């Protein structure tokens, strides 16, 4: 699929400005940028949640996982009902089986289906949100900062899950994060966004090893490194 | 900074336009009021026994025999020149009635607002500081139940109780009418108690909110003396909400004044509007309701403009 010349305007403010970005089937494209760069707006436009100009081709079924796991599940619906909302044309038993299968896919026990979101931890909620998205059998999965609201010790497990799902299901992904290290770890392609525009796109290792744009270099230099030299 | 000034100007302009539109709608509504009365308002007012000629003469005087658009234009033109028609009952010009009584009503309402604010803001802040983070549950319970009760009792009960105790019982203040300064005491108190309780509650909640902010935490980390902390760092943060409530309150006070004026036979607009509705004196009712409406809209406009000037960050986006 390809995003072509996509722009989003809010009144006089242009949040996304003529972005063209191909997402080859089965690949994970990482979108990095700082706050206000327009990366989340781009994600919402691709998902069809905000009006845009330009074209998006080849992605008919798009699903999204949101940043805040505490806001992305209806507090008054059970986990099973939330996941089951996207499963249409199934009988009751088939639906229950499918919910159980999806929960298993995200490594959650099937008996979680009867629980309410408030009984779940942040990491569990994020897994439920992923299961809900997968239930609609998406051609493209958008992950918008899905680990930034989670505890450090839980982030790794969610990232591992995303990688496993990609490998098993051959998902195409648009993975959005402010954290270059996370994007590098999960994605094949990195696209760097600044003030609504893409400033650099390329294979992940290449962008990290030999950044061509000054802004990418600045971003890379700013990434805190555990073993980094003291400046 | 230039952008800020421009945005502030645009905000004020938007508010003015909204005010103008609302004013137009209000004119239409007060004009339509007479026409929405089922049957013939003049006949309803004068009663079935009134002679036909008198009814027709009244209708002509009101312009009711003309086509609707002409009537509306006439009405708007009249209002703009201060000509609101003539009372069915007394034959006074409604414009004169308003001019004579509006100042009396406004004095009462403004005095009550001032009293309510002066009592309630310090009280609410004090209660907020005392009960921060759920300490002193007793104080909190006492404060909320006393103010909750005070809010729940309507003005007319305060008025009646004050009259019964302080005017009839103790004879300290005159029971009715407007004479010297002492005649203001009971109506002002009756009008101010409910709003004061409301502001005090709101002020406490706002104080608690501000006390929980990070900037107050930082100010505490600076070890500022408490007087400075509360007056300089906490008070300004509560102003926006207080001002917003003030707008609501002032308009509520104006409505409340209708009842208080009625009880205390206060020679204001409120006393007159009750009389005009019960007596079906439609020109007076129409004129006075329009005036009340304009007051409400003006108060809201002023509050909005004040908020815009005070707190550009949060109010300007919208």
């Amino acid at each position, binding site marked *: 699929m390809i995003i072509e010349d996509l722009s989003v305007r809010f009144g006089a403010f242009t949040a996304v400005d003529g972005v063209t970005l191909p997402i080859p089937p089965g690949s994970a494209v990482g979108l990095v940028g700082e706050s206000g760069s327009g990366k989340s707006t781009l994600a919402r436009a691709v998902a069809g*949640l905000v009006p845009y100009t330009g074209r998006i081709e080849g992605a008919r079924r798009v*699903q*999204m996982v949101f940043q805040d796991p505490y*806001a992305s599940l*209806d507090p*008054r619906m059970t986990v099973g009902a*939330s996941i089951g909302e*996207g499963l249409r044309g199934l009988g009751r038993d088939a639906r229950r089986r499918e919910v159980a299968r999806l929960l298993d896919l995200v490594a959650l026990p099937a008996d979680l289906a009867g629980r309410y979101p408030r009984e779940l931890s942040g*990491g569990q909620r994020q897994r439920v949100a992923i299961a809900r998205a997968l239930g*609609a059998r998406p051609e493209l999965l958008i992950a918008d900062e899905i680990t930034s609201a989670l*505890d*450090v*010790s*839980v*982030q*790794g*497990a969610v*990232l*591992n899950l995303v990688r496993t799902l990609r490998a098993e299901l051959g998902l195409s992904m648009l993975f959005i994060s402010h*954290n270059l*290290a996370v994007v*590098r*770890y999960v994605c094949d392609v990195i696209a760097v966004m600044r003030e609504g525009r893409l400033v650099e796109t390329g294979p992940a290792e290449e962008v*990290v090893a030999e950044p061509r744009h000054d802004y990418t270099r600045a971003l890379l230099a*700013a990434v*805190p490194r*555990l073993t980094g030299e003291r400046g | 900074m230039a952008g*800020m000034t421009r945005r502030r100007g645009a905000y004020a302009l938007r508010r003015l336009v*909204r005010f103008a539109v*609302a004013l137009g709608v209000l004119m239409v509504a007060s004009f339509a009021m007479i026409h929405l*009365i089922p049957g013939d308002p003049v006949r309803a007012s004068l009663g079935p026994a009134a002679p036909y000629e008198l009814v027709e003469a009244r209708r002509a005087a009101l312009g009711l025999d003309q086509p609707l658009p002409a009537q509306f234009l006439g009405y708007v033109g009249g209002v703009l020149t201060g000509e609101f028609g003539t009372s069915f009952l007394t034959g006074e010009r409604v414009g004169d009635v308003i001019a004579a009584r509006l100042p009396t009503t406004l004095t009462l309402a403004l005095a009550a607002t001032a009293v309510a604010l002066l009592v309630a803001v310090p009280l609410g802040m004090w209660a907020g500081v005392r009960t921060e983070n*759920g300490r002193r549950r007793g104080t909190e*319970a006492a404060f*909320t*139940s006393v103010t909750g*009760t005070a809010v*729940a*009792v*309507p003005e007319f*009960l305060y008025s*009646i109780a004050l009259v019964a105790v302080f005017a*009839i019982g103790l004879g300290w203040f005159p029971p009715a009418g407007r004479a010297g300064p002492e005649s203001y005491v009971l109506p002002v108190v009756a009008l101010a108690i409910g709003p004061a309780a409301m502001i005090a509650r709101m002020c406490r909640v706002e104080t608690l909110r501000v006390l929980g*902010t*990070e*900037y107050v*935490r930082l100010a505490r980390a600076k*070890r500022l003396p408490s007087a*400075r902390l509360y007056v*300089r760092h906490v008070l300004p*943060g509560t102003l926006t909400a207080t001002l917003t409530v003030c707008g*609501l309150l002032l308009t509520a006070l*104006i*409505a409340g004044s209708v*009842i208080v004026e009625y009880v205390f036979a206060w020679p204001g607009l409120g006393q007159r509007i*009750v009389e005009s*509705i019960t007596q079906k004196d*439609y020109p007076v009712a*129409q004129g006075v309701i329009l005036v009340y409406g304009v007051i409400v*809209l003006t108060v809201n406009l002023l509050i909005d403009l004040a908020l815009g000037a005070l707190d550009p*960050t949060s109010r300007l986006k919208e």
Partner: protein
Amino acid sequence: MMRTPSAWIGVSLVALMVVLAVIGPPIWGEAAERIDPGAVLQGASAAHPLGTDNLGRDLLARVLVAGRLSLALALLATLAGGLAGVVLGALPSVLPRRAARLVTATVNTLVAFPGLLLAMFIAVIAGLGARGAVLGIAAAVAPGVARLTQTLAASVAGRDYVAAARLLGVPRPLILVRHVLPNIAEPLILNLAQAMGGALLGLAGMSFLGLGVQPPAYDWGRLLFDGFSRIYVTPVVALGPAVAVALAGIGFNLLGDALARAAARTRAAGAAPAGAAPAPADPGEPDPDAVLEVRDLTVAFPGGLTPVRGVSLTLRPGEIVGLVGESGSGKSLTAAAIGGLVPYPGVVRAGALRLCGRDARTMPDRELGTALAMVFQDPMASLNPALRVGGQLAEVATVHLGASRAEAARRAVDRLGHVRIPDPERRARQHPHELSGGMRQRAVIAMGLMGTPRLIVADEPTTALDVTVQRQILTLLREVTAETGAATLFISHDIAVVGELCDRVVVMYAGRVVEELPVAELAGGAAHPYTRALVASVPGMDTDRSRPLAGIPGRPPAPGGIGPGCAFAPRCPVATSRCTAERPPLAPYAPEPGASTAHKVACWEAAA
């Protein structure tokens, strides 16, 4: 909900009103209508406790009977107004944009009008009587409900779960029914309960003015109208209806308050006494080289919660120490305790809490205010939006250092320039919202430099900032520490940031220090399984992409649910039965003799 006396009173009063409405007319109806020409216009007597009216009817009976009509009319007005309001409030979400805006604007204008005014307007049109008054009060209730419905619906419609449902192809009406309405029903019903009280008072007011219920029907307001005309002669006749109206108004209001509180209450801990912490250990002699010396620090909250349990820290001049942990590890409360900022009802106990060798808890504000600088997480929130930046800095100098206003202002500008804020004179005159996030954090640091800081406590100071700005703030913190010779305690959840900035790292888990090590050993030489897992679970720029990250199973324990052993044991891959039974002490760790002595760990399995 029934915890407070006021809730009890509210519920009882409303229940009383409902019972009265049901049984009033059948029991006292006859007495209320009985005309007695021999007892007209009487005051209080044994036969007629509240007197009689102009036809000699007993006023007490009439008050008791009038309850039904008063309540019924109020209910009718509330329901009619509520229904109209909900419809009006829901309309904008289904109407085309322009029409929706018109409805919204109309509602917004109507909300500003006091109910009584709207009610009188309707009464002019509908004529005097119960019908006009009910319509009028309904018209007064509707705009408020409409506005609330609109606000609530708009906020729910903006939630991510509604966006998710849209992506799953759930049709709009179904979203309204399934997601929006259930999530706004509770506050809406609550509001209607409160509106009911308002409607009752409004109707009473209308009747009292003679605009509502007309004879021969009567409600409390009408009885008050009749009684008021006789108040100079027999005040007692106004008493019955007045008390009835007041009780009803108070009852509904207190009930509404209690309902609102119950709805807003999160499962907060009860007011149990603070958990008994073990008596702190002997404070010992002050360490002459230490800037900050914390011994056996415990922070306890009511309900037996102790988020910080026995933390000890020592910071030396010029040293930057990182305090790492997840949310709930107690790291921020530790910082708050050092700054004396633990919120009520938290209780702080410590064997020693010394700043430059003196007890920080008894230090005068003047000294503490200049020796201790604090920086918080959100620079957008930590400056007072109502005050100019320069003034917020300057007050430290005027309050604690006795500087004149001009001197203080000059120093504020100088300090702003010192943290490399460009054009400091202009910035000092601005309000915080005119500064970027990074600049505000610089300003907060500059505030700490107004005095001569000995200790800088920075609680997640870069978490809310972009990476490029984070880099600048970290550099600034390092410079400031070097230049002032102060010690810096840097609290963060981000082990990479800590690894880059700090000299020494203290790792907290579930309220305790589990490891303390020089930063050079963090990446390769950590001894505690938690520290190791933390390091391995965060991807860095050179993490092997082909291998999964080391995850930590499970979740951090709740503050109340920690057993006698090591708090990490349930998630630990190498835990033994000893780990769950017995808590390991923080002990020096030296895998080989002669290795660094600064490394300590609390783990049975790591002991070399």
